[in-house]
C-alpha cells in the first residue's frame, strides 16, 4: 500500500467532515434557539418517575414550570428532602424543612369489624360499588375494600387486607394518586413522623356508627379532653390535628371506639401495619 492511499483517504474523509462540520456550525449559528439551560438541570434533579404528584404532566413539565413560571419548588413529594435541597440550591429559593408525608386510610373497618347491608356482586371497583346506594357497607363512610386505590398506586404500597385498604408507610412515596382514586375521600396525607391516628371517618352519631362497625368513632370527646392540642371534633368525629404531637399517649387505651391507634406500637408487636 502506498502512502498516497492514506493521504487520499484522510483527505476525502477530512474533506467530507470539514464540509459537514462547517454546515453544522453555520446552522448552529443561524438557527440558534434561546433556551434556558436550567430547565434541563432541574429535570435531572427530579426523580423522573413522572407520577404527577406536583400537579404537572411529568418531571420535565414541572422543571419547566419552576424556571419559566416561578412555580414553588416544594411540590415533589417522592423526591423528599434531598430533591428539595438540590432544587433550593439551584434556584436560590428558600424553603422550610421538608416533612415527609405518607397516605393513610382513615378507616379500620375490615371484613371482621364492619357490617354489610347488602350483597354487592358488581364489578370489583370502589367507584362502582359506591355508585350503588353509597356502597354495600352499613357505614356510609368506611373503606369499601375493592382496591381502586391499590390499582392506581405506582409503587404497590397499598395492600387490600380482609376488605380494607392499608397503605404501607415505608413504601409510600407520597404521590397522592390514591387520594383522588377513593370515592369515599377517606385517604389523606399525614406526616410520616406521626404515629397516632384516628382510623375512622364516620360522621354518624355514636350509636349508628357503633352499630355499623366495631371500630368506629362514637363522638365521645374523650380524646379531646385528654389531649386538646392533638385532637379536635368535627361533629361526631374526632379529627387528629397533625400540627401538634400527641402529648398524652393514654388516648389510645382510653378510646372506647378503639379507633385511635398507635401505628408504631402495633409494628413492634408484629401486627399488621394498619393498626
Amino acid at each position: 500500500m502506498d502512502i498516497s492511499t492514506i493521504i487520499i483517504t484522510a483527505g476525502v474523509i477530512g474533506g467530507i467532515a470539514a464540509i459537514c462540520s462547517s454546515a453544522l456550525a453555520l446552522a448552529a449559528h443561524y438557527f440558534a434557539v434561546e433556551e434556558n439551560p436550567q430547565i434541563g438541570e432541574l429535570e435531572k434533579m427530579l426523580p423522573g418517575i413522572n407520577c404527577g404528584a406536583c400537579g404537572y404532566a411529568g418531571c420535565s413539565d414541572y422543571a419547566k414550570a419552576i424556571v419559566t413560571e416561578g412555580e414553588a419548588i416544594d411540590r415533589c413529594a417522592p423526591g423528599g428532602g434531598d430533591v428539595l435541597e438540590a432544587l433550593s440550591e439551584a434556584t436560590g429559593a428558600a424553603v422550610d424543612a421538608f416533612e415527609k408525608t405518607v397516605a393513610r386510610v382513615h378507616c379500620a373497618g375490615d371484613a371482621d369489624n364492619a357490617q354489610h347491608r347488602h350483597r354487592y356482586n358488581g364489578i370489583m371497583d370502589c367507584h362502582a360499588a359506591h355508585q350503588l346506594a353509597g356502597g354495600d357497607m352499613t357505614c356510609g363512610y368506611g373503606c369499601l375494600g375493592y382496591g381502586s386505590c391499590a390499582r392506581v398506586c405506582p409503587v404497590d404500597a397499598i395492600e387490600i387486607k380482609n376488605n380494607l385498604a392499608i397503605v404501607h408507610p415505608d413504601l409510600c412515596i407520597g404521590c397522592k394518586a390514591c387520594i383522588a382514586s377513593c370515592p369515599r375521600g377517606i385517604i389523606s396525607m399525614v406526616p410520616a413522623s406521626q404515629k397516632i391516628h384516628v382510623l375512622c371517618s364516620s360522621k354518624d352519631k355514636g350509636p349508628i356508627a357503633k352499630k355499623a362497625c366495631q371500630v368506629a368513632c362514637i363522638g365521645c370527646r374523650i380524646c379531646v379532653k385528654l389531649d386538646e392540642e392533638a385532637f379536635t371534633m368535627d361533629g361526631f368525629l374526632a379529627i387528629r390535628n397533625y400540627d401538634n404531637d400527641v402529648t398524652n399517649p393514654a388516648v389510645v387505651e382510653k378510646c372506647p371506639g378503639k379507633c385511635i391507634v398507635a401505628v408504631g406500637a402495633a409494628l413492634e408487636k408484629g401486627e399488621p401495619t394498619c393498626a
Partner: protein
Amino acid sequence: MRVTRALRKLRGSIHPQYFKGLTSDRNIVEMPLPEKLYLSMAQHLGAPAKPIVAKGDTVTRGQCIAESAGFISVPVHAPVSGKVIDIDTAPTPSGTMAPRVILETDPENTETVTMPPMPDWNERPQEELLKRIAEAGVAGMGGAGFPTHVKLSPPSDKPINTIIINGAECEPYLTADHRLMVEQGKGIADGIRIMCYILNVKTVFVAIEDNKPEAIKTMQDALENLEGIDATVCILPTEYPQGAEKQQIAITTGREVPSGGLPMDVGCVVENVGTVLAIADAIKKGIPLTQRVTTVTGHIVKNPQNVLAPIGTTYADLVSFCGGLTAPAAKVISGGPMMGMAQPSLAIATTKTTSGLVVLEESRVHIYQAMPCIGCGRCLEACPMNLVPAAISYAVEGGDYDRAESLNILDCIECGCCAFVCPSSRPLVQHFKLAKPKIILKRRQAADAKGAK
C-alpha cells in the same frame, strides 16, 4: 289518524324473555295510603329540589313541599295530608344520595289543594302552560326524569316539528305504560293536544310495540278526530331497546340523532305516555304530579299487578300491598331488569321515575364470573348505538379513560344489550356506567379550568 309500521329494523337489538303476562291483563289498582311516605328531593334529572317545609310542619295533599332549585329542576308536592316527621339524607333508587322529606299520613285529613284548572288552555299563552307544567313538578316518567318543561321549551334555533309519544315499553316485566294506554287513552289524547299546542306541532307519532294489541287499539280510538293534528300510531316489532329515545326517533321517523346530540337536534320531542298524562292532569285539573303507576312484579310476588301509588311509597309497602312474597327475594330491581338499578333494601321509596319494581328469586339471579374477552364481536352486533363495547370495556378496565372517551363511550345509552349477549359474561355496561360519570366530570372540570383562565 293513520297506522304505520316501523320504517326499519332496529340496528343492534336483543330479544330477552319478557314475562309481561304476569301483569299485562290486570287493571291498575289504586293503593290505600301508606302510613309513611319518603319523598326524595332528587326525583328528576338536574339539581335536587330544595325543601321548604321543616320538621313538625303539617302539610296538605297537593301542597308544594320543595321548590325547584334551578332551570333544570322541578318542585316536589305532598301526595298526602299529614305531618313532616323528619328531613334527612338517604339513597335514591338510582343509587345517589339526596335529601328526603319523611311524611306521616294523617288519614283524617282528606283535604286537597290544587292549582286552578285551565279548561280553556288552548286560549292561554304557551308560556303560562309551561309555567304550570313546571309548577306541577312534571318530570319524564319513563326512567331518566328529565324535567318536562325544559324539554317542551327548546331553544329557538332548534325548531320542533314532530312529537313522539313513547309507549314502546321494551323492558321485560314492565306493563305500567301498557295499562295506562289501555285505561287512560282519553287522558293521553288530551295531553297530546296540549303538547302540540305548546310546541305548535302538527305531527305526532305514538310508538307502541306489537306485543300490546289492546293498547294499539285503544290509542287508535283515542287519537281519532284530533282536529288539526296528524296523528299516527306506529306499530313497532317487539325488540329491546326501542324505547330508548334515539332509537325510537330512528325507527319512527328515519332521522338519526347526531353523536352527542339531543332529539331536538332532529326536530323531535319524545315523551313517555305517563308524562303525557301528567301534563294533561296538571293543565286541565291543576293536579301536581304526586302519584304514578308502578308495575310490581316478579314470579315470587303473590299478586303481581300495576299499582297506582303515591310517590314516596316504600318498596316494602308496595310488595305487601301485592300480597307479599312467596319465597325470599334475592334481588330487587327498581325499573326494568335491563336498565333498572338493583336496590340495597326494600326501605327505598318510589320516585316520579319508578316505572316498576321487579323482585327476583335466587334461581333467577346469576352471579357471573367475568372471563376474558374472546373477541367474538357479538356485543358489536348487539349495540344499538354502533359502538365497540369490547374495546371500550378493555380501555375502562385498564384505566385508560381517554381511550374510552375517544371510542365514544359517552354515546352509550346504557341499555345493557352488550352485557346481555356477552358469552364471556363480561360486565360491559357496568364498566361504561362506571366510567361515564368520571369522564363527564373530567370534561366539566376541563371546561371550568378553561373558563377560569
